[in-house]
């Protein structure tokens, strides 16, 4: 779609604009504009690259293990426990353990990479649930008002009296010994717990956006030509509330990962022997004062991923809505 309509088959846009001696900018959608703004932000690009890299690792780690490039993350090798990583050059290093081994002689590199998979799952799955539930309920509450809205607001009031992490602690501590808590090393329970604690925030965000949009002319226009409520919500409201929702998702992912790491660090998250960065720190903490790498490496991974997601989130926020603050 060119800005200047050309007479068919005779002149291209560029030629015509040259004729007219004006610059014609190739027309871009709002989303493309945001994408270019994002690419100009160096920190955001670095963050994005790191996130993509970790995602690739998370997807490929089962194949790497199957092909034998990586050791089994659960295989114990007690004679070779607490090997130092090769860069320390100490006599307690083995070239077969490039990142060293933990106190049960398990390969730290392999455990770190498998943890990446857990972290990515914990980042993306609950946030998808939060997105679906929060956006649906928020749209309905904001658009219809009435009792849906009333119930949502009352639930929010109560949930806001709970600090997220405390609530997560209680849910995890009580339910992790049930059947639900045993599925996939407790992963499913973590998904559910994080989603339960956080959907309200998303619903509230969407509700607020809808409230401010639904009195605008374009919604009124849609309603006046007889568009049904569902169509208005899906085709008109949804695309217009997407920017803040995307930003909230971008910050929701690292905070879900952090919640898992914290819970696992205190021994009420992922169940050992499944590896996760939090579990690794928890297990290594006992021997921390004598050999630090089994703890420092997962801590470093958490820091890198957190920073990457924050840079990306900040970049997305600036790109999608330059007026949003802080």
């Amino acid at each position, binding site marked *: 779609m060119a800005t200047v309509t050309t007479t068919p088959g005779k002149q291209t846009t560029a030629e015509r604009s040259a004729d007219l001696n004006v610059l014609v900018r190739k027309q871009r959608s709002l989303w493309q504009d945001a994408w270019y703004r994002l690419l100009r932000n160096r920190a955001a690009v670095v963050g994005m690259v790191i996130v993509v890299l970790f995602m690739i690792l998370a997807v490929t780690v089962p194949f790497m293990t199957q092909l034998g490039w990586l050791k089994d993350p659960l295989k114990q090798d007690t004679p070779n426990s607490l090997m130092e990583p090769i860069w320390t050059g100490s006599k307690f290093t083995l070239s077969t353990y490039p990142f060293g081994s933990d106190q049960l002689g398990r390969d730290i590199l392999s455990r770190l990479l498998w943890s990446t998979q857990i972290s990515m799952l914990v980042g993306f799955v609950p946030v998808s649930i939060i997105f679906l539930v929060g956006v649906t309920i928020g749209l309905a509450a904001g658009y219809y008002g009435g009792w849906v809205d009333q119930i949502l607001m009352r639930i929010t009031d*109560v949930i806001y009296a709970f600090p997220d992490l405390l609530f997560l602690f209680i849910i995890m501590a009580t339910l992790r010994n049930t059947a639900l808590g045993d599925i996939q090393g407790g992963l499913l329970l973590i998904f559910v717990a994080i989603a339960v604690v956080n959907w309200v925030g998303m619903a509230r965000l969407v509700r607020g956006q809808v409230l401010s949009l639904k009195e605008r002319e374009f919604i009124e226009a849609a309603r006046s030509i007889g568009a049904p409520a569902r169509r208005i919500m899906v085709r008109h409201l949804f695309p217009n509330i997407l920017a803040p929702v995307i930003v909230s998702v971008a910050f929701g992912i690292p905070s879900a990962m952090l919640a898992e790491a914290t819970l696992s660090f205190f021994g009420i998250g992922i169940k050992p022997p499944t590896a996760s960065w939090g579990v690794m720190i928890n297990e290594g903490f006992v021997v921390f004062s004598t050999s630090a790498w089994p703890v420092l490496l997962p*801590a470093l991974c958490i820091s890198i991923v957190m*920073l990457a997601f*924050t840079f990306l989130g900040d970049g997305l926020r600036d790109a999608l809505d330059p007026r949003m603050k802080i």
Partner: protein
Amino acid sequence: MLRYTIRRLLLLIPTMFFVAVIVFFLAHAAPGSPFDAKAQGDKGLPTATILKLEEHYGLNRPITEQFLLYMESVAKFDFGNSFRSGRQVSEIIGEQFPVSAQLGVQALLFALAFALPLGVVSALRQNTAVDYASLFFATIGTTIPSFVISIFAIYFFGVTFHLLPFVGWATPQHWILPTVILALGPMAFLTRITRASMLEAIRQDYVRTARAKGLGEQVVIVTHVMKNAMIPVATIVGPAVAGLITGSIIIEGIFSVPGMGREFLRSILARDYPMIMGVYLLYAFLICIANLSVDLVYGVLDPRIKVSK
């Protein structure tokens, strides 16, 4: 204003009630008993003893009845006895609350003492090295989780260079690491808010007016810009208190500080219901009070905002 305050204080009662309901039923939702082997560590108790203990604490009754009994005793300010030590919950909390409060207050003061000057300076020198440095610090402080920072701090200051102790709360030296690390999160957040709100205030018309009538730069900044810029900052102190409470649980757990946070963690793991309920109710109450006082102070600080009826 008085009516509003009373109304908000009365609203605390239903909120606290719902908190109690949810936490009580959630905590009791777990299968098994707090006295079976899983909760007690490996040495299991004989079944007869478990039954006796359950009867003693009323755990064999229907859960709704247990809840009503609990609420009845709470109404008389009796929070029951801890399952683990047998001592009164209020007595344990009375011992540990001062430690947690000291940690929290120290951290809040430390955070304010650094965040406010840092935020002001970086706003006044916007887009200079000072500004970028403080923004970088703020990003690190809000992004990297406190337990990860603790690990690095223990590694450098404790393990490698033996500069500071990192287990317990015995001497003022023991206070340094927990306090500073607990303060980092709120500090970074406050720095960002202070900077943003200074930048906003500095562009207002009344600042231009103040300059135009010939006031000195210092007077303009201190009495006109900062006075207004501090209003949004004051509102953040409420959420910051909530952050300090959750943060202190993590920090007390890591540094073995004998406060309520560590007690809460242990109670959760041992399913010590009366302790969990007691500590949680106190936390929820503190958070509600912090939010309430911010809402009230806000109206006083900024007369432009009318407290809604």
